[in-house]
C-alpha cells in the first residue's frame, strides 16, 4: 500500500496486552481489538523492534510466538526484569507495567481504519 494511504498510530489504539513474569523473563501478550489487524502486528511488531524498545532495561533476547486462531502474539523477553521479583531494585519488580510500554510502539495502518487517536 502506498505511503500516503497510511497513518501512524500507537499500538495502544489497535491492540491490548498483559505482562507476566517468571524469574528474570517477561512475557507480554499482544492482542488486536480486531482480527483484521493481526496482519499489521505480524508485519510491524517484530522481535527486533521489541528488543530495541526494551534495551534500556537490559533485554538480551526476544522470541515472538504466533497464535493465529485467537489471534494474538506472545513476546518472551529475556533479562528484562533487572533480576526479577526476588532481587530487582525497580519499583515494579514483576514488570507488570511493561505491557503498556509495549503499547507505546508506533505502527502504520490504513488511513481508512477507524481508531480512537492518531499520533
Amino acid at each position, binding site marked *: 500500500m502506498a505511503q500516503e494511504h497510511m497513518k501512524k498510530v500507537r499500538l495502544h489504539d489497535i491492540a491490548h496486552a498483559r505482562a*507476566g513474569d517468571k524469574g528474570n523473563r517477561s512475557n507480554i501478550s499482544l492482542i488486536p481489538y480486531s482480527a483484521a489487524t493481526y496482519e499489521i502486528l505480524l508485519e510491524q511488531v517484530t522481535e527486533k523492534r521489541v528488543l530495541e524498545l526494551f534495551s534500556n532495561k537490559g533485554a538480551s533476547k526476544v522470541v515472538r510466538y504466533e497464535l493465529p486462531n485467537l489471534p494474538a502474539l506472545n513476546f518472551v523477553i529475556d533479562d528484562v526484569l533487572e533480576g526479577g521479583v526476588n532481587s530487582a531494585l525497580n519499583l515494579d519488580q514483576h514488570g507488570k507495567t511493561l505491557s503498556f510500554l509495549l503499547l507505546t510502539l508506533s505502527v502504520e495502518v490504513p488511513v481508512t481504519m477507524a481508531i480512537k487517536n492518531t499520533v
Partner: protein
Amino acid sequence: MVPSVVNIGCGAGFSGDRVDAAIPVAETLAKREGPKYLIFETLAERTLALAQKHRRKDPTHGYSPFLEDYIRPILKKCYETGIKIVSNFGAANPKGAAMKISEIADQLGCKNIKIAIVEGDDLLQVMSSRDIQNHPTIEGLEIGDNEVIAANVYLGARPIAEALSRGADVVVVGRCTDPALVLGPLVKEFGWSEDDWIKLATGTMAGHLLECGGQVTGAYFADPGYKDVPDLANVGFPIAEVANDGSLIITKADNTGGLVSAQTVKEQLLYEIHDPENYFTADVILDISKVRVLEVGPDRVKVSGAHGKQRPDTLKATVSIDGGWMGEAEMSYAGPNALKRAQLAIDVLKRRCRDIKTNNPIRFDIVGTMSVHSGDNEDTTNTHKYPDDGDYRIRIATCGHDKEIVERVNQEMLSLYCSGPAAGGGFRQHLTDQVQTASILVDRNKIVPKVHFLTDYT
C-alpha cells in the same frame, strides 16, 4: 455415574486477594446442578518461603495468613450445599491449615466435615539440603552454601483427585501446580486416565484461566475509553463449566460486576505463558497454540482447541534461599522548580553513597518522569520532556547481605530533610527481608504424594 458438567469457581487468585470475592461465587455454585467446587489459589513462589519462616517461629503457623478470612464467610454455605473446597492454603503447614479449618467448622456447626491434607511436596523430606544446594538450577543460579529455607515440589492433580474420591469436603494442599486445583476435581469426577493428554490439557487450561481469579473476568483489564469494565469495584470471580468431552465455558458469579469476553479470556490465556505449544505442568504438557475463543452468551465464553502431550519425567521444585536485605527510601519535591531540586537531591545522594564504599547496587528514580519503565542505570538528568514545575518523588533502592550498609543508604535519604535541597518532604522508607528463589527439576519417581484426613491424627 459420570456427570455431564462440573462447575468449578475460583475464590482467590493470589495470597492478598479480596476476601469477600468467594461469597457470590459460592452463592452461584449453590444453585447449580451436578458436582461443584470452589478453589482458592493463595501461594505465590515466594509466599511459601515466608510461610516456612513463620512456621519456624511458631510450629502451629506457616499456612496462608488469610485462611480464616477466606474460609469463614463461605464454609457453612459450601458444606450445606455440597460445594467441595480445594486450596493450597496449606503453604508450609497443610496440617496446621486443616486444623484451623476444622476449628472454624466446629464453630459454624458443620458437623462431620471431612478435611483432607495432601503432603509430599516438601523436598527436604526426600533430599538433603546439601544435595539440593549442589543441584543445577534452571536459572543457572548457584545455590552454594546458602541456607535452604524451603524447597517444594509442584505436585499434580492426582493426589487431589484421590482425596476427593475418599470423600473429602475440603482438600488442603501445600505446593501444587495452580491448574491442579481445578484438574484434580475434574479427574475425580470424569475419571480421566493418566494418559488422556487432550482432556488433561483442557482441564489444565481451565485451571490456568481460573487460577488468577478476577483476571479472567475483567479485573486487571480495564483501560478507560479502550477497555471499559462495568462495576470493577465489585468484580465477579470466575466459574468454569467443564463437560466430560472436554468442552469448556468460562463465566462468572451472578449479580456481580466485571465481564467475561473474548478479550478478557485471551489476556488471561496467555498470562505467564512462554512457548504456547509447551506449557509444562506435573500432569501434562499443555499446547494452547491452536486455541479458539468464542462468545456464546452474555458473560459466557467457550474456549476450545487445547492439545496435550505426555507429561514430563521430572517435576519442578522451587528452592528458597536467604536473599539479604532490600532498602528503599523516598522523598517528594513539588511546586516551582521541583524537578531541578529533585535532581540536585539525587546528586547529593550519589556523592554521599560514594563515601559508603559499597559494591551493592544502588538505583535512583524520579517518580513522575520515568521510574518503572526505566532501567537500573538510567540517566536521571535526561528529563527534558518533563516540566521543571511539578510534583515529583525521588526514590533510592539498594540491596545486599549487610543490613547496616543497606540501612545507611536509606539514612542518606532521611538526612535530606535538614541537609538536602529546599522543601523536601514526605520521607518514607522500607527495609525488606529478601528471599531468593531458584527452580530445580526432580525425578518424579522420587516424589510420593500422600493423602491424610485430619481424623487420621486423632
